[in-house]
């Protein structure tokens, strides 16, 4: 009797682990996620609710803009073609929308780190007058009136009363499942395939010049750095300075991941570069000196034309088509 209970316990623990893995990929070549899942345990119904919300313009004042308007799956959840984000009534924002992936490993959000927790992220676009321009209180009221959402909230929380907490946590759950870890690079790391000589050389150059900021395997060290692109004087965006009010943070922006970089053009916080060779041109000959320029970029990076090609070939191994076309992340049926 005892033994069988023990067995049952062990089995149920296993099934729990397997189920978790089904809800969200936990790649072997990644560190442990930093998101606290104990406070918001993943559940199929809650993820589905979050996904429905992510794709629903009901979150905006005039029901026209959804999160997915600026975060489109096929471009690694960033905006297509717009250097600066495009919001409600065609209003233009002040920054380029970042690609969204592997958010369970990230602790601060936005280019300047203004957001301190994934759960609180959605509040920013919902209330931004240039994005969705709506009050969270109104969103809750709109959802409460909608019988589809009452059912979805009930399925997720056994409670059809919509609260701000549940709304935010369910959107987090969907975003947490957006794991990209099946690129050619990952498969090489997991020894499922090998790099070509060109890719190998690109990888070597990457480790030498880029990896200290765009650190493997997430391709960011999550620090704020000034990479010498200089300020666009029409935007006057000082980055991290706005948050810490500390002059030593002037012109620093969060190091973005380079995963799926092939698809997330345009690049940088203001979307100033369209192509990867423009980015490499910047790092080799375009660095603008200033007080807060990262130490690592004070010495010039020299790359021959062939080396540039190799480096870009490596960057393309970070593309993850399984992620970009995974139907689980797409518009809900």
């Amino acid at each position, binding site marked *: 009797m005892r033994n069988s209970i023990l067995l049952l316990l062990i089995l149920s623990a296993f099934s729990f682990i397997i189920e978790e893995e089904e809800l969200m990929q936990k790649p072997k070549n990644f560190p442990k996620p930093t998101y*606290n899942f104990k*406070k*918001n345990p993943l559940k199929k119904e809650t993820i589905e609710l979050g996904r429905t919300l992510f794709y629903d313009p009901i979150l905006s004042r005039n029901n026209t803009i959804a999160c997915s308007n600026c975060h489109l799956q096929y471009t690694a959840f960033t905006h297509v073609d717009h250097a600066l984000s495009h919001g409600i009534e065609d209003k233009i924002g002040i920054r380029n929308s970042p690609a969204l992936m592997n958010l369970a490993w990230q602790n601060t959000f936005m280019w300047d780190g*203004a*957001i*301190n*927790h*994934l*759960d*609180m992220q959605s*509040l*920013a676009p*919902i*209330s*931004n007058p240039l994005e969705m321009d709506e009050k*969270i*209180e109104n969103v*809750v009221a709109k959802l409460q009136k909608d019988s589809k959402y009452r059912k979805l909230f009930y399925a997720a929380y056994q409670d059809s009363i919509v*609260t*701000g*907490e*549940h709304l*935010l*946590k369910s959107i*987090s759950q969907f975003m947490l499942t957006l794991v990209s870890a099946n690129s050619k690079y990952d498969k090489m790391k997991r020894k499922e395939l090998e790099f070509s000589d060109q890719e190998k050389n690109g990888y070597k150059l990457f480790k030498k010049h880029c990896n200290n900021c765009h650190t493997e395997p997430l391709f960011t060290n999550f620090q704020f750095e000034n990479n010498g692109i200089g300020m666009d004087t029409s935007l006057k965006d000082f980055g991290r300075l*706005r*948050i*810490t*009010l500390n002059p030593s943070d002037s012109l620093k922006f969060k190091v973005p991941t380079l995963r799926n970089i092939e698809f997330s053009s345009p690049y940088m916080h203001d979307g100033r570069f369209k192509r990867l060779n423009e980015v490499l041109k910047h790092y080799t000959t375009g660095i603008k000196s200033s007080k807060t320029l990262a130490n690592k970029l004070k010495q010039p990076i020299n790359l021959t034309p062939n080396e540039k090609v190799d480096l870009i070939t490596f960057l393309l191994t970070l593309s993850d088509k399984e992620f970009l076309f995974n139907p689980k992340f797409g518009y809900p049926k």
Partner: protein
Amino acid sequence: MIRFCAIIFILIGFSVYLKAQNHNLVLQFNPKFHQEIVQFDEEYYSITEKDSVQFDIFRCYISNIQLLKNGKSVYKEKDSYHLLSFGENPKNEIKIPIDIAFDQIEMQIGIDSLTNVSGAFGGALDPTNGMYWTWQNGYINFKLEGKSTLCNTRNHEFQYHIGGYQFPFSTIQTLKFHTSNPSISIDILLDKFMENLNLSTTNHIMSPSTNAVEIAKSFANSFILETNEK
């Protein structure tokens, strides 16, 4: 076995009943201006003789309530987060069903930094309460809005949204009162608070800053035990 369970259930039920009966610790907060309880949205007050001040919105977080006896903690409220709100539908009382002897009470004005970085919560901390900054995360520890002829702003409005949890702009404040009375009345002297503010220059604070830290300190100094209490 069944009988044993039944007894346990009755005991639990009884203790829950008892707990519900004694709302033993009661904290009441009263915003005052020149000794009068503040009337929101209507009454006009003056700081000096030549001005007028009117209050519209006043909300404030009280958290981490703790009782001490002889300098030692004897009770800490769990999940101790309360949102006080004055004016329309006021919530100015905190009731805690305990019966413990104490000689000092401590509490904080605002939300601690750990809670600030731990994501979404419900109840008093739900972001739909309008006490959360959306463009740069963090709780607004207290909010005071109104109008004054001293403010050279649109409609003479002033808005103080005071918060910030990160060094060096942490605004959370600790209050300590020596009392053993379980029914505590605390006055918030808005006249004193407003006198210390320079309304003509500082009338719009909506983000963490050195200024916000100063205002938070001055705000905490305007909380006093009601004098006829001791």
